[in-house]
């Protein structure tokens, strides 16, 4: 079976995974004013956060129907099917664009578009499930069914430095409950049913990191885990160490950089964990 896997750039998948499993990443578009960049292609995370730090304000936009159609067309030749896994349709129009794009191709190659109900490595966890299923020689319906049944097992949490980015990007959802009060705290948000929910209110980053670790421990043991960061990789070391103890062979969790697309909404100083539970 030659089955192709597509994810969007909001998945933040590290390059080693992309290379290892031959995953295709379709970039979202990140804009500074009228200048448009392909997320992670002609705009690196470093450059992106540098511009944000300098006071520029980014916005994102979904890949066009045509871009999806073109990618699917290209991948379809000689392949037995395509599974295309995307950021929660409640947070982005990417899924819709992909569905539209899949209807525009001429070939017979079946395409299954999946709404991950997740973001960042939450999508990545599902792509891993797909990749392992493909490796196992499964046919497209089996791969899709394995991915769909893994959706409720994915847990994704993020500790943000500020809710400003999420709020300005219009993606804050119920996380708005954590906005602005007398008491300062570092918000921890949870992605659930494809939406952003408030999760915890640690008063310092240190406590926030501790809370992320406790949360992962509560969900353990884990099949897979990932740790995400936007600007400070040093802060992830403690989380990586603790999460290693929760996976079967004490495998280190994947370390992923929140790219420009996700970073537009999470902002600098963000940390996250994505878990695939049993």
């Amino acid at each position, binding site marked *: 079976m030659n089955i192709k896997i597509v994810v969007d750039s909001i998945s933040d998948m590290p390059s080693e995974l992309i290379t290892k499993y031959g995953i295709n990443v379709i970039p979202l*578009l990140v*804009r500074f004013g*009228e200048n*448009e960049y392909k997320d992670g292609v002609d705009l690196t995370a470093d450059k992106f956060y540098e511009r944000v730090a300098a006071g520029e304000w980014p*916005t994102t*936009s*979904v890949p*066009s*129907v*045509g*871009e999806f*159609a*073109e990618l699917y067309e290209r991948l379809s030749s000689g392949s037995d099917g395509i599974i295309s896994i995307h950021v929660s349709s409640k947070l982005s*129009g990417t899924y*819709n*664009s992909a*569905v*539209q794009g899949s209807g*525009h191709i001429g070939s017979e190659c079946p395409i299954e578009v999946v709404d991950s109900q997740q973001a960042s490595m939450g999508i990545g966890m599902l792509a891993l499930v797909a990749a392992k299923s493909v490796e196992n020689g499964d046919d497209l319906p089996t791969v899709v069914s394995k991915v769909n049944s893994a959706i409720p097992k994915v847990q994704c949490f993020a500790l943000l430095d500020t809710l400003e980015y999420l*709020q*300005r*990007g*219009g*993606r804050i959802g*119920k996380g*708005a*409950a954590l*906005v602005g*009060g*007398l*008491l*300062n*705290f570092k918000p921890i948000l949870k992605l659930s049913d494809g939406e952003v929910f*408030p*999760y*915890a*209110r*640690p*008063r*310092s980053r*240190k*406590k926030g990191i501790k809370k992320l670790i406790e949360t992962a421990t509560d969900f353990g043991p884990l099949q897979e885990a990932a740790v995400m960061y936007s600007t400070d990789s040093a802060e992830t070391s403690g989380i990586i160490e603790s999460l290693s103890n929760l996976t079967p062979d004490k495998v280190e969790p994947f370390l992923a950089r929140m790219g420009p697309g996700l970073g537009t909404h999470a902002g600098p100083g963000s940390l996250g964990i994505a878990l695939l539970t049993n």
Partner: protein
Amino acid sequence: MSSSSLKTRNKPPSHITGIVLANMFLAAYELIHAHIELVNALNVFPVPDGDTGTNMAMTLKSVSSAIKESVNSGSTELDDISKAMGKASLMGARGNSGVILSQFFKGISQGVGDKKSIGVEEWAICMERAKESAYSAVGNPTEGTMLTAIAEISRQANISSKNGDTLESLFNQTSIQIKETVKNTPQLLPILAEAEVVDAGAYGLDIIFEGLRRNIIGLSVTDVEIPVPGMKNYKGFTLPNKIFLSQSINKNYGFCVQVLISDNVTQADQIKKAVSQIGDSVVVINESSMLKIHAHVQRVEQLLEYAQTLGKVESHSVDDMDVQKEEFAAGYIKANHPEMTSLISVVDGLGIKQVFIELGACQIIDGGPNNSPSVSDILTKIELASSENIIFLPNDKNIILAGEQASKLTKKNVEIVPTQTLQQGINCALEFDAENDLLKNKKLMFTAIKEIKSAEISTAYKNTTLHGVSVVAGEFVGISDGQLITSASTIDEVLYNLLDIEENNDVELVTLYWGADLLKEDSKEHYKVIRSKFQNIDFELIDGGQSHCIYMISME
């Protein structure tokens, strides 16, 4: 460019040829480009992210590049140009509005087919196709958006076609029709009415069609401003999104109001009906002559006024709401979504009260010196809470017992988290999650109690020696975890002494709540001094307004 290339005309054309169509959409792009910011500013639906204008302009930019490319390469026939436009819009479609717009171009391209020139009749077919494609492209078509405008454009084209109108008249009529549609969008889509805007995408389409119309009748599009239909004073209307966002924060919550009424004689059904007119999530419970009303409302006074007509209002859950409305909203229960667990807390001071409300307490009991709540005070609040599962934070060791007694008098499940200070209470409330069950909340809070150290600064009323510290009446004293630690003649000194012993104890964050007896300027000065002395510690200064001490301090 050839002689048949892009230029302005004097007389309205009778038919749309490739060059006419090209010129029309180049003008539309120029016009929408000049209106990007205004369209962005109106964008509240589906996601209030302020990019509708940019998305529409980027989509048309890609169309206009394709037009120029096509003309420059010699393809000026209508079928070639409309196909190139359709493809370019599909590739260049940005955002929701862009996707819908690309379907619009797809419709034109389908309607044109292989024709080299079209009239009003064929344009009507193009618009019909555009409407069908646009509606089918959206998973969940919502009226009051660009889609409604496209439907109206198609309807108008059909009328013009049947009437045998000229192109000029078709586009004049269409523009009039779109403006009416834009004006009406808030009536079709309530979120627009709430944000007091018209739909951004529909207005974008109005601009595009103004571009088309102006080009057809030979008017320039340079330096032209297309007013927003149905809106006045939109100039200087720079960030409605921000206003709307702050509104939408409140919108999700509304106010959870509960009223206990005695001597009621009105039938519960009748009351339920009446309250349903005021709010939702209405629950009316009649226990003998006692009546309990629960509702989620936007206007609290409206419900209270009605409640007063029913009998004697014994108590209500918003009786001590005296901090700002929007600050309250965040702490209150989401409409149509009852809490799994409710939080009740004893407070002292306005600022402290606000902190607890912001952290999700649905019932507040005023405490403080000489104001110890009675068992029945606590019981009333327990009964008023929307949930059957209650976390009670006494925040004073002398109130724990009253809480325990109250918990024995109710059928509800009450967990008392034995907080002895407000600082501990706040740290527990930070863990509160109304969606979690009682035990999960309790477990997190029992841990949270131990995570902070509570201290306070007060004035000594008499000479004494305690824990080896001698105190002169009128001096300031520092107490930490219930132990007298230090006394001095200035607040600065006491503050310094209290923190000095903690510096080696891994304290990272110190929150100072200044009390009702202190001036804001003084507390700011203390804050400034102490921050400069302990640079390894983060400090936060909060207007607690408590009356039981000068400073409440939490150290963690």
